[in-house]
């Protein structure tokens, strides 16, 4: 189980990078540069609130997992 937890660390890091890429290119910039107020509100929420938390948090979580910090033998 410990090795699965470690290997999956790569998945979380990859997911963080993918979320950052699609979040910025698909939802972030196209929405905040839109003329519609609805798009602007949505873009701000995605770009400045959700993305930093998901990307930053998931990236660190993935690194910790890869380092074996969540292993059963750790405190």
């Amino acid at each position, binding site marked *: *189980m410990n090795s*699965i*937890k470690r290997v*999956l660390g790569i998945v*979380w890091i990859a*997911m963080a990078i993918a979320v950052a890429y699609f979040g910025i290119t698909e939802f972030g910039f196209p929405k905040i540069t839109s003329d519609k*107020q*609805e798009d602007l*509100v*949505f873009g701000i*929420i995605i770009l400045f*609130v*959700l993305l930093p*938390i998901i990307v930053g*948090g*998931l990236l*660190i*979580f993935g690194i*910790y*997992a890869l380092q074996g*910090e*969540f292993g*059963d033998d750790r*405190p």
Partner: protein
Amino acid sequence: MSSPSKNKTLLKVIGASSVGTMIEWYDFFIFGSLATIISSKFFPQDNPTAAFLSTLATFAAGFVVRPFGALFFGRLGDLIGRKYTFMVTLLIMGGATFLIGCIPSYETIGFLAPFLVLILRLLQGLALGGEYGGAATYVAEHSDSSKRGYMTSWIQATATLGLFISLLVIMGTRVTLSKEAFSEWGWRVPFWVSILMVLVSYLIRKNMDESPMFAKAKESGKIVKNPLKESFGNKLNFKYVLLALFGMVMGQGVVWYTGQFYAMSFLENTMKIDKGQVDNLMFIALVMGTPLFLLFGWLSDKVGRKWIMLGGMLIALCSYRPIYDKMFQTTNVANKTAVAAAPEVATTTEEDHGVSIAKEVTTTTYTDGTIHKKTIATPLDAAGVKNTAKAKETVEVHINSSDRWTLILMVFVQVVFVTMVYGPIAAFLVELFPTNIRYTSMSLPYHIGNGVFGGLLPAVGTYLVSNAKASGHQQWYLEGLWYPIIVAAVCFVIGVIYVSNKPRTLSE
């Protein structure tokens, strides 16, 4: 301490903590429940969708600042104690809520109105960020480990009770006043009522003692000087903050907000059901579901917290689309037969703040008792000519008794998911961290998960639905669900693999 005396103290602790939590959530929920009317009072009315989204954003702003409140008040709670900190948060919350009820409308003071709403909303969010962690920690540190899930589930139940009472007060005000009076000033009453409840709760909390575990830690000099650094700068603690967020609270937050807020917003804005009927059916579903918080809290003491919460998450994410499809189709007039071949049309002219408005109300009655009412309000110029560019169309559906019970059942099922994920969460979180940083460490993931992931759900969901509708998607009304489904699915996988189900004791 003898057992009866200990039980009495514990009841007082739960009572004092839960009542305060209930009031804080009451304050927070009335804003959400009155979002539609608030948008018409405090925001420009040229674009109703923009006004509604702005309200949701203001509502969301209160959620987004909650993690900052968690950090600020969590630090205070770990330095000076749980009791004094959650008394301060209670007073800030109550004061801000009362003042929202006193702000003049956009028509009277212009852009100052939404600005003041936003400021007070941010204060509410900060206070709430500090409240929950204090109450949960305070109760957990008084409880035996074998009953911690059950004892802390009272706090979870009273959070929903806050919504329940907010609906009761709103419904009571609506019933007591005429529709015009409620729209004019009556919507402010639920905000004013808050101050009375806060005073009562303050008096109860004032006479409580400090948490025994915190008092012991303070006596033995185990209080850390910088709880923030210890919580988030120390990898040993920070990894559990991340695990709590991504492996449990993130999914719990979206399941909670889907079941209680998105469901309400969906009934009102997507299905266009009469607001009074929506309040009523939400109220009944919540009354039926609230005791289950205690059941699942109790059960988590017996079988562990992990699988109850993850089980709730899994069932929720698999069943959201069928549930919302059933809800939508229940009142979809395309599936119903009209009583008369032609609808009834009534035309009137009304005065609204010095402007003449021509109203055309088209009423269609269906064989099952459903009434569909479409109103087109068009302002008239000085010559009495309709200004069709500024016409507003509103739709209201009055549902029959059978459909009402179907919708109550659908919402109740979602409340069951909520009770599974939310009932044991306080016990789960307090058991992850030591006494000297518990308030700070548990508050942050809780408020990011619930405040950010959950709190933004109505705004993101409404946007996805309106976007799908505009692009002609066949099942546009279900598109808002992708957000909770994806978040809960990722959280479920992380929770299954990384979260332990071993019983834990509160460490000093």
